[in-house]
C-alpha cells in the first residue's frame, strides 16, 4: 500500500480524498494555488505545497507543477479527483513515465473513453446499444444530412472530445444541422483543442441513468448499482439518487450487464461510470463513459457501505476486489449546493462566506470544503457542498434531505440549497417523475 499520496485537486473532493488517506494511515499531500492558500484542503492535509498562481491552467491543470510537487514530496501516487487532469491520458502517461502511480484507469483506457466517437464504436461493437447516430467523426455536412434522413430529426451534434454540454448543439432540420455542425465544431476546437464532432439522435424525455463500476488489475469487475441523475441544469447534474424508481429488477440487471460489457470493451480498471439514456418505452442507450470518481459517488457509498475512494486507492496499489457482488440497502439522494444564484440563471456567486450553518443529524452526510469565513474564489467550479441523505426508503431520504437543505445557511454567497429543497419536496419528485423539464418549474430562467 502507498505511504504517501498527492491529491491533484481542490475543494470538497480534495477534502474527501484526504479523509480517505487519513483513514488508511496514508500521508496526504495537498497542492494548492495561491488563491487557495486559506482553503480547507490545504489545511487538512498532512502536507501541502503551493504549485502556482490562481489560474487553473498555471496550477491545477499545469502538469509540470503537479509532477514537480509529487517528486519533491516523494509521493508514490497521485489522486486526480474529478475534473482538472483526472481524465487526461497525457497526464496519466506522464505519471507512468515518472514512476508515479496514477490512481485511475490506464492512459489507454482514458484515451479511448475520452474520444467519445471512438468509444461509441467500441461499445457498440461489444453489443451494447448506443444512441442512433454517426459511426465516428462527421466532417462532411452532406454525410450529416444523409445520416439525418436515415435516423431523423431532432439530432444532437456533440464534440468528440467534449463534456459538460460544451460543443453540443441541437438541430431540428437540415439548415439548423449545417449551422450546428460548424458552430459545435469551432466551439469544440476552442474548448478542447479538437474540432471533431459526431451525431446522435436526440431522445425526448429520456432519463439519465448511470452505473458505478469497480475493476481491479486481476480481472475482477463489478457494478455497485445505478444512480439516476435526471435533474440537471445547463447539462450539469443537480440532484442524484439511488436506486432509480424508474428501474424494474429485470431492467436493472439488463443495464448492469450492458455496463459491465461496455467497461470490459475498453479494458477499464479502477472506478468508473457508464452513462445511459433510458427512453419512456424502456429502451436504454449507452452515451458515454466517465473515467473518474464522480461527484455523485456518495449516494452509492451510502447504500452499499463501500468507500469508493478507498477502493480506488486499494485497486491502484494492486489489491484485488475482496467481493464479487454487493447488496445495497435503503435509499440515498444527493443535492449539490453550488455558489450560484438560481434567480439569475445559476450565475456564479463567489465572495466571502461570513457565518454559515451546515446540516447534520441522522442519515445526513455533508461533503464540503466550506467553513465560516471562507472566501469562494472566482477562478474555479462553484460547487460548495454536497448534502447526502440516507433513509430506509425513498420517502425518508426525501424528507431528511429537504430538511437538511432548508437548514443549510450561508451568508454572503447565494446557493442552490433552497431550490433543491423545493424540487425535492415537489409532488413530481415525490412521484419519481424526474423528467428533464422538472427543474424548469422551479427556475423558469434556467434554460
Amino acid at each position, binding site marked *: 500500500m502507498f505511504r504517501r499520496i498527492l491529491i491533484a485537486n481542490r475543494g470538497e473532493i480534495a477534502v474527501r480524498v484526504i479523509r480517505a488517506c*487519513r483513514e488508511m494511515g496514508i500521508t496526504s499531500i495537498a497542492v494548492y494555488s*495561491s488563491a487557495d*492558500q*486559506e482553503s480547507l484542503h490545504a*489545511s*487538512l492535509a*498532512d502536507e501541502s*505545497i*503551493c*504549485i*502556482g*498562481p490562481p489560474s487553473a491552467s498555471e*496550477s491545477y491543470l499545469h*502538469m*509540470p*507543477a503537479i*509532477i*514537480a*510537487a509529487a*517528486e*519533491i514530496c516523494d509521493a508514490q501516487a497521485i489522486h486526480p479527483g474529478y475534473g482538472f487532469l483526472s481524465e487526461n491520458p497525457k497526464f496519466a502517461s*506522464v505519471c507512468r513515465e*515518472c514512476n508515479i502511480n496514477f490512481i485511475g484507469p490506464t492512459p489507454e483506457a482514458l484515451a479511448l473513453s475520452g474520444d467519445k466517437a471512438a468509444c461509441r464504436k467500441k461499445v457498440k461493437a461489444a453489443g451494447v446499444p448506443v444512441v442512433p447516430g454517426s459511426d465516428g467523426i462527421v466532417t462532411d455536412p452532406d454525410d450529416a444530412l444523409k445520416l439525418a434522413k436515415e435516423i431523423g430529426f431532432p439530432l444532437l451534434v456533440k464534440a468528440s472530445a467534449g463534456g459538460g454540454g460544451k460543443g453540443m448543439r441541437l438541430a431540428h432540420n437540415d439548415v439548423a444541422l449545417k449551422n450546428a455542425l460548424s458552430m459545435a465544431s469551432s466551439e469544440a476546437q476552442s474548448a478542447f483543442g479538437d474540432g471533431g464532432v459526431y451525431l446522435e439522435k436526440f431522445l425526448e424525455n429520456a432519463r439519465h441513468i448511470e452505473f458505478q463500476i469497480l475493476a481491479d488489475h486481476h480481472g475482477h469487475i463489478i457494478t455497485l448499482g445505478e444512480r439516476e441523475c435526471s435533474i440537471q441544469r445547463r447539462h450539469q447534474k443537480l440532484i442524484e439518487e439511488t436506486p432509480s424508481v424508474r428501474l424494474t429488477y429485470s431492467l436493472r440487471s439488463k443495464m448492469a450487464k450492458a455496463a459491465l460489457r461496455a467497461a470490459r470493451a475498453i479494458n477499464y480498471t479502477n472506478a468508473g461510470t457508464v452513462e445511459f439514456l433510458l427512453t419512456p418505452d424502456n429502451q436504454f442507450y449507452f452515451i458515454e463513459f466517465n473515467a473518474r470518481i464522480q461527484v455523485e459517488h456518495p449516494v452509492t457509498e451510502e447504500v452499499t457501505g463501500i468507500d469508493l475512494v478507498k477502493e480506488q486507492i486499494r485497486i491502484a496499489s494492486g489489491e484485488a476486489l475482496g467481493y464479487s457482488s454487493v447488496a445495497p440497502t435503503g435509499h440515498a439522494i444527493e443535492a449539490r449546493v453550488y455558489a450560484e444564484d438560481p434567480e439569475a440563471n445559476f450565475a456564479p456567486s463567489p465572495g466571502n462566506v461570513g457565518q454559515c450553518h451546515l446540516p447534520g443529524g441522522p442519515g445526513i452526510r455533508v461533503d464540503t470544503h466550506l467553513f465560516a*469565513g471562507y472566501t469562494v474564489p472566482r477562478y474555479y467550479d462553484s460547487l460548495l457542498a454536497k448534502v447526502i441523505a440516507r433513509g430506509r426508503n425513498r420517502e425518508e431520504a426525501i424528507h431528511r434531505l429537504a430538511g437538511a437543505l432548508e437548514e443549510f445557511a450561508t451568508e454572503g454567497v447565494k446557493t442552490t440549497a433552497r431550490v433543491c429543497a423545493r424540487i425535492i419536496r415537489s409532488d413530481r419528485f415525490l412521484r419519481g417523475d424526474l423528467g428533464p423539464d422538472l427543474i424548469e418549474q422551479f427556475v423558469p430562467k434556467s434554460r
Partner: protein
Amino acid sequence: MDLDKLQELIRIFEASDLSEIEIEESGRRMRLKKPRPVMSYAGQMIPMQPADARGTQMVLHESVTAVPASAPVRAEKEPEKVITIDSPMVGVLYVAPSPGEPPFVHPGDTVDEGQAVCIVEAMKLMNEVTAKYPCVIVKALVENGEPVEFGQPLFVVRPIEQV
C-alpha cells in the same frame, strides 16, 4: 505616553495569554487587541484570517484623527522592507547552469534586468529564473538542490536606482 513605555507594554502583552488589553491614563485611553487566534486541525495551524492581519496590532488614539484606526505598530523596530526574487514555479533549485559549473550569482554581485540568477527544475525541464530589474544580490535564501514552492523567496536583493 512615550514609545519605549509602549514597546514594553506590547512585549508584556504579547508574552501573556490575553487577547486584549485596555489602559486608561489621565483621560487618555488605548486598547491593544490581538488578531483572531489560529485554530489547529490534527495538530497543524490554520490562520483564520488573512495573513496580512497577523501579529500584534494596536489602536492608539491621541485624537480622533491621529492614527488610522487599523494602523499596525509592531513591537520590534519597523524592519526595512525586504525585496526578494521569488520562485515562478514549484520545483528544485539549482544555483549553477550544470553540476561543477560556477553558480550564476554570489552575494554582492550586481545583476542586470533579465539576467539569470538560478534554475528551477520541474519535470526534467530547466527553467531559468531571471532578475526583473537591475539589482544587487544581498543574500541567497535557498541552498543548491533544495525544493521550492511557487512564490517562495529565493534571493534578497537591493534594486539599483536608475539615473
